[in-house]
């Protein structure tokens, strides 16, 4: 178990280093950073001075190490557009994105599991067919189209929900939350559905397939032969055995949810990191792009680790290596 954890941690560091290299390379190859800071008519001497002050005349490996060291300390440089530290900008936008991603994940997990269990148990019912149709839509329609359709229906036509923004937020320390106001909650609904629909479909299909698979196993047959109630068999014995793949999907997809939030945030003008990133791309604001890239990579890697640990909580067989067989 320890060896396993160390191996995973090393892999994680490797991934982060690789992303760090890419982020660093963006600075070197996407134009001269000095040009972004000085104006067109700045004299060459002054340019040189800016260059030196930024450390851009050092050897590339030195620059890279310095960049990494600064990034680890949360110093991602200063945004070209906003002339503000990137870390401040990200910290300001992160709550919006995380709240959206978490709501989308909760939505997709709850509905995905419910629909998956139902359609795994009642394979031929009418509702199952409805779920499958919905899931087909979730898989095949692009995210932005779903968002636009929702806006058209619930914001423009019915006027029930706001079409953009986060609504009113409440500041708790540095964290701004939309979860404590009615308008904030209303504003979360459509973006969460838009962002979570694809995962919901995925989870539903996996739970359904796993459920059907598990119900055919010998231990379910034996549980029936022991006279356990249908409820105990379906929800105690079968459902628990589908949880490992569900945890995998929910966990591993959480990184994707944050990454895909770019599209949802753009459609709903959601003031999160994704929207910040899109604006950064439009304005070639390299420090923001690089920092965003590394942050998303960090989230991916952290979640991967957490998922590996969660497995062992659900499945005792994976714990054997740390236990003494008696």
């Amino acid at each position, binding site marked *: 178990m320890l060896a396993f954890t160390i191996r995973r941690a090393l892999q994680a560091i490797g991934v982060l280093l690789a992303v760090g290299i890419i982020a660093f390379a963006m600075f070197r190859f996407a134009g001269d950073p000095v040009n972004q800071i000085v104006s067109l008519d700045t004299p060459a001497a002054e340019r040189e001075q800016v260059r030196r002050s930024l450390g851009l005349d050092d050897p590339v490996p030195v620059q890279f190490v310095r960049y990494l060291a600064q990034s680890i300390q949360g110093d991602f440089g200063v945004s070209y557009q906003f002339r503000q530290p990137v870390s401040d900008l990200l910290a300001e936008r992160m709550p919006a994105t995380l709240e959206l991603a978490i709501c989308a994940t909760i939505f997709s997990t709850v509905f995905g599991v419910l629909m998956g269990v139902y359609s795994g148990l009642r394979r031929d019912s009418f509702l199952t067919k409805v779920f499958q149709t919905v899931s087909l839509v979730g898989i095949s329609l692009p995210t932005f189209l779903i968002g636009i359709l929702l806006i058209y229906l619930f914001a423009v036509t019915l006027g029930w929900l706001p079409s953009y923004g986060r609504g009113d937020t409440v500041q708790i320390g540095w964290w701004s939350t939309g979860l404590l106001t009615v308008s904030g909650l209303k504003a979360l609904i459509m973006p969460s559905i838009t962002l979570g629909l694809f995962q919901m479909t995925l989870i539903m299909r996996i739970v359904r397939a796993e459920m059907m698979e598990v119900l055919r196993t010998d231990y379910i047959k034996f549980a029936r*032969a022991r*006279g*356990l109630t249908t409820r105990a068999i379906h929800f105690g*014995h079968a459902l628990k055995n589908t949880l490992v793949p569900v945890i995998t999907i929910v966990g591993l997809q959480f990184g994707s949810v944050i990454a895909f939030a770019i599209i949802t945030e753009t459609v709903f003008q959601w003031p999160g990191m994704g929207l910040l990133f899109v604006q950064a791309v439009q304005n070639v604001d390299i420090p923001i792009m690089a920092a965003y890239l590394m942050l998303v990579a960090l989230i991916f890697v952290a979640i991967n680790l957490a998922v590996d640990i969660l497995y062992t909580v659900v499945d*005792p*067989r994976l714990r*054997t290596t740390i236990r003494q067989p008696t």
Partner: protein
Amino acid sequence: MSVVQPVLSVRDLRVEFVTRRGALKAIDGISFDIAKGEVLGVVGESGAGKSVTGSAVIGLIDPPGRIAGGEILLSGMRIDNLPPEEMRRIRGKRIGMIFQDPLTSLNPLYRVSEQLVETIRTHTNLSSSAARKRAIDLLADVGIPAPERRIDSYPHEFSGGMRQRVVIALALCVEPELIIADEPTTALDVSVQAQIIALLKRLGREHGTAIMLVTHDMGVIAETADRVAVMYAGRIAEIGPVRDVVQNPLHPYAKGLMGAIPSLESAADRLVQIPGSMPRLSAIPPGCPFNPRCPYVFDRCRVERPEPIQQSEHRVACHLYDQSSVRSEAVA
């Protein structure tokens, strides 16, 4: 014998699997009884219908299968047509079932204690601490050392033989009248097979449990069973006291099965190979299903189905033993 009510009584049972090509008869009219404390051995080639018979008794035939006729009585009470919820209460409480593979019979995600306590509490109104105490006693009873400590282990922390003991404890935990053991040792190491069978036999004797023991192992049958049923293509070819059937089989198929057993003592003998193979359900020949492979086949066998005939203590389904059959004297 007939004065005492049998624990299990199967009367002319028929089981069909409804497929696109019509209903396939997996079990085609079988009848047998098992008395209190009696072990009925069931043998026959793979696909003969042994497992389907067990599933029918416990009310768990896989779809698209269904009972198409006959009746099943448990201590005189008809159970084949009970509502699902009532049948569920009988499963595990009055009929215990043990499957072939102990490695896959236990839910890997729950402790043995959880699975035992859950089963006990489903069928009794014991408190969970009383159920746990009962579970520990049961584990001791099936020969698991240090049960107070082992009870909270997960299934994968036991060896195959020990897991099968846990499975037996689960099947017996509410003292059923009848146990159906479907090849309970096939998946086990040869060295522990005999122990498991001995355990089953001891527990059956101590509690007066009727046991239906499906096995491929003629040695096990000879040592354990009181009576034996030889199945072929969904029918019982021959049924009778174990010594008679093993030493003096009447049905040509049973003769073939028993033919190669050198002595009752050698436990490792498997069923011998009879030339040819059992027909698929969709291609069972008319008349006697064994007729394409039977060395004694005659005209009547190809057209008329042989009905079971009582011959002293055996019951045999073969035209050779029918008095009206012209050829009956020719064989002896």
